[in-house]
Each structure stands twice: as structure tokens, then as C-alpha cells.
């Protein structure tokens, strides 16, 4: 009987001695495994974010090149051709006529130089990094307004500050995407763009007065709107796209500037 008691005591003592640290060590191991998974997921998201960022940069470069090509073809080449014709002064032209032609040509060349200068400043990736989001959008708005295709009203509220280079690049890309959608599909005459800076919130709103569309159609409207939502999620922002037939389209991007994990929730779809 005493032997049985001793065995029981040995068993209980051993359990007490070993159980607590065993559980502790198992818990540490389990937590460590979770940490490993978390690190792997984070690395994956980081890689996806970098890929998207690269894609965005490439798209922007493509767009810039297209823009430059269009400008050269539609503007610079035309004006220079005119200058060439202008300078082909006939032999019987009077000095006054020749002087007038030369003066006209000088003005045209000055205009071309000016246009080329503006072109060189326009929309390069480095430009956004240098000037910041607000100024880059202002330049873009000015350029589009000059073309007369659409009238854009830009409003900046609050104290404008940097949101971080990567975020600003993605936000600018979203703005471009919204602008392209308005130009290509909406038939809008007016576009309101507002940038609102608050202490813990930044809002980018793009509102057109175009023909609009049904909310159900959003998923079938090409990759443009989907890109906006995905890109917003990439930088930890929320994109809300609101539209109805005849009521235009409103794209709202909201982001907390202090979000530390911009590439989190990369698959997030917040179309409403």
C-alpha cells in the first residue's frame, strides 16, 4: 500500500515539476512558429507591394512618353513646320515683309521652347518626388485645363504635408486613373478634385459631372476602377466609388497618414 502511495507521489511530483515549464516551452515554440508565418506573409506582401509600385512607375513612364510623343507630334512639329514655311522668304519680299516673317518665326520658336520646357517638367516620376503631390496635381490640372477638353477645379484643404514618396506616387497614379476614366468614358464637362489634409486623415476626392453608371456595372468597367481600389488598398487607404446614371461619378480615397503598414491588406476590395 505504501509502495502504491509513493508511486503516486512520484508521479504527481514529476508532473508538477515538468508540466509548467513544458507548457511554457511549447507555448514559446508555438508563438515562434506563428512569428515565422507572419514574417513570411509580410515578406510576400512587401514583394507584391514592390511589384505593384514598379508596375505603377512603368505605367507612369509609359503615359509620360505617350504624352511627350503627342505633344511633339501635335504641337512642336506643327509649329516648327510653320516656322520652316515662314522662313522660306521669297526672293522678291521687301525687307519689311522679311522682318515681319522673322519676327513671327521668333515668336513661334519662343512658344515651342516654352512648350518644350513645360513638357520636360511634366509628370515624370522624379518630378512627383521633388514637387510633392499637390504641386504635381496642380501642374497636371493646369495642363488639362489649357487643352480645353475638360474644366478641372482643384481645391486643397488643410495644411498640405508629405504623405511619403511611395504613397504620393500611388495617390497621383489614382488621380491620373480617375482623370482618364472621366475623359474617356464619362463625357463630363467638369471635374472637381479636392485634397483635404487633416491631422489623422487625408482625403482625395475626384468628382465628375458625367453620365455615371450603375454600381453593379463597376466590376465590368475594365481594370481602371479595379486598379484604383487595389492601389488604394496597397497604401493602406480605402477607396469608395459612388456613381449612378446621370449623376456622375465620385471617387473618394481616404488614408490615415500614420498607418505604418502601407502594403497590408493587398487584396482588400472596398467598392461600395
Amino acid at each position, binding site marked *: 500500500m505504501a509502495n502504491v502511495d509513493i508511486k503516486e507521489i*512520484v508521479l504527481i511530483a514529476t508532473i508538477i*515539476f515538468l508540466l509548467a515549464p513544458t507548457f511554457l516551452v511549447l507555448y514559446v515554440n508555438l508563438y515562434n512558429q506563428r512569428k515565422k508565418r507572419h514574417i513570411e506573409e509580410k515578406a510576400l506582401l512587401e514583394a507584391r507591394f514592390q511589384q505593384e509600385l514598379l508596375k505603377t512607375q512603368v505605367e507612369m513612364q509609359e503615359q509620360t512618353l505617350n504624352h511627350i510623343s503627342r505633344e511633339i507630334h501635335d504641337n512642336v512639329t506643327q509649329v516648327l513646320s510653320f516656322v520652316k514655311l515662314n522662313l522660306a522668304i521669297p526672293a522678291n519680299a521687301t525687307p519689311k515683309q522679311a522682318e515681319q516673317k522673322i519676327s513671327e518665326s521668333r515668336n513661334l520658336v519662343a512658344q515651342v521652347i516654352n512648350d518644350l520646357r513645360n513638357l520636360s517638367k511634366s509628370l515624370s516620376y522624379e518630378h512627383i518626388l521633388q514637387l510633392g503631390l499637390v504641386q504635381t496635381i496642380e501642374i497636371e490640372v493646369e495642363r488639362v485645363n489649357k487643352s480645353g477638353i475638360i474644366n478641372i477645379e482643384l481645391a486643397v484643404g488643410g495644411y498640405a504635408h508629405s504623405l511619403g514618396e511611395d504613397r504620393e506616387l500611388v495617390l497621383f497614379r489614382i488621380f491620373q486613373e480617375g482623370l482618364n476614366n472621366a475623359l474617356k468614358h464619362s463625357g463630363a464637362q467638369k471635374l472637381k478634385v479636392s485634397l483635404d489634409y487633416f491631422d489623422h486623415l487625408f482625403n482625395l476626392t475626384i468628382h465628375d459631372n458625367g453620365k455615371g453608371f450603375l454600381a453593379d456595372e463597376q466590376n465590368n468597367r475594365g481594370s481602371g476602377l479595379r486598379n484604383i481600389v487595389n492601389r488604394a488598398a496597397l497604401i493602406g487607404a480605402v477607396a469608395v466609388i459612388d456613381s449612378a446614371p446621370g449623376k456622375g461619378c465620385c471617387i473618394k480615397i481616404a488614408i490615415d497618414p500614420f498607418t505604418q503598414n502601407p502594403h497590408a491588406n493587398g487584396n482588400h476590395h472596398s467598392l461600395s
Partner: protein
Amino acid sequence: MFRYLTINISVEIICLLTAFVCLKKNSGKAWLSMIPFLSMICLTEFGGKYLKMIYLQDPVHNLPNSWLYNILLIFQALFISLHFKYLIGNYVNSKPLIYCGLALTTMLYIYELYDHGIYKYNNLTNTVLSVQFISYSLYYYYNLLKADSYVNLKFSPGFWWVTGILFFCFGTIIGSLFYYKLSPILISSKVYLTTYIYITLNIILYSCWSYSFICKKWQMSTSKK
């Protein structure tokens, strides 16, 4: 000679030999310090066994071996605390914590020596030291998990070294707390239950330490490549 080779001493010698084989100069001072420390433990165990045999032969004219283990306690506190200082120091500044712990141990040790002399084992110091080592172990785990980088625990020398200490100290504390209940229990005609408990704890401690030395050797050979 063989009558000195108890299970405890055998396990300690195996651990010492593993340390000799696995720990090289480039393992760092903290790990290398394990070799003199384990040598000291082995020598103390031999000495302790010898003194115990003499004492059992003539308890009237001889003294028990507690004084020898009281001396070992100083080195235990020093070597283990400094190793914790190195391990926790990989994550945070561990100096204040370790030095405070050592100061507390010193005060308790002196108090106990003053209270009952060197010939009685310093149980209070030993128990408080175990509590300190458990706290250090938990703090080490906390920092290990909090760190951004991932460490494969299967092959982490630090983790296994700390795990050995954690098991041993948990056992020591519970053993000390229930000492008066457990110590009279005899498993066989001559062997007490506490003996088995301490043998089990020693086996766990030195197995974990031996494995941690092996991990350290793997780590060193991997980092060389």
C-alpha cells in the same frame, strides 16, 4: 574510482566533454566560460561525494559536505548570471537586471552565512537564485519572441541553454518548497524520493546544455561557410 561515478556525476562529465568538443575559441567568451564552470561542478561533485562518504563513516568527527556546495553556489550565481547577461544582452541592455540580481544574491548569501555559518547549506539563497533564473529565462523568451527576426528554436543554442535552466529551477523551487514533505519518503530501503527528483532534474539540465553546445557548434560551422 567507480563508486564516485553516480548518475549525476556521469551526466555532468558527459556535458563537460560535449562542451570540450563543441565549444571553440570562436564560440565567444560567454559560451567558453561553460567549460571551467562545468569542470568546477564535476570537481565539486567528486569532492562532495568523497566528503559524504567520510561523513557517513564517522558522523561524529566529520562534517557534512554542505560547505563545499555553498562555495559552488557563488560560482553558480556568477557564471549563470553572466551567461544570461550575454543571452538577454543580444536583445536589450541586460546589465542593470543582472547586476541587481547579483547584488541581491550577495546580500542573501552573506546574511545566511552570518545566520547559520558555512557548514549548513544556503537554502534561501539557492531558492531566490532559482526564482531569479526563472525570471531571466522568461525575460529571455519574451525578448526572443518580441524580436523582429525569426530564430529556429530547434537549433538555437541560447534557447536550449535557457530551457535547461528553466526546468531545473522550476524543479529546484518546488523541491525546496515541499522539501519537508518529500525528504522523508523512501523509494527503496536507502534511496529517498528527493534523490530521484534531483537526478531527473540534473539529467534534464545537462541534456539541454549538451544539446545547446552541439547547436552552438552547428551554428559556428554554418556561419563559417
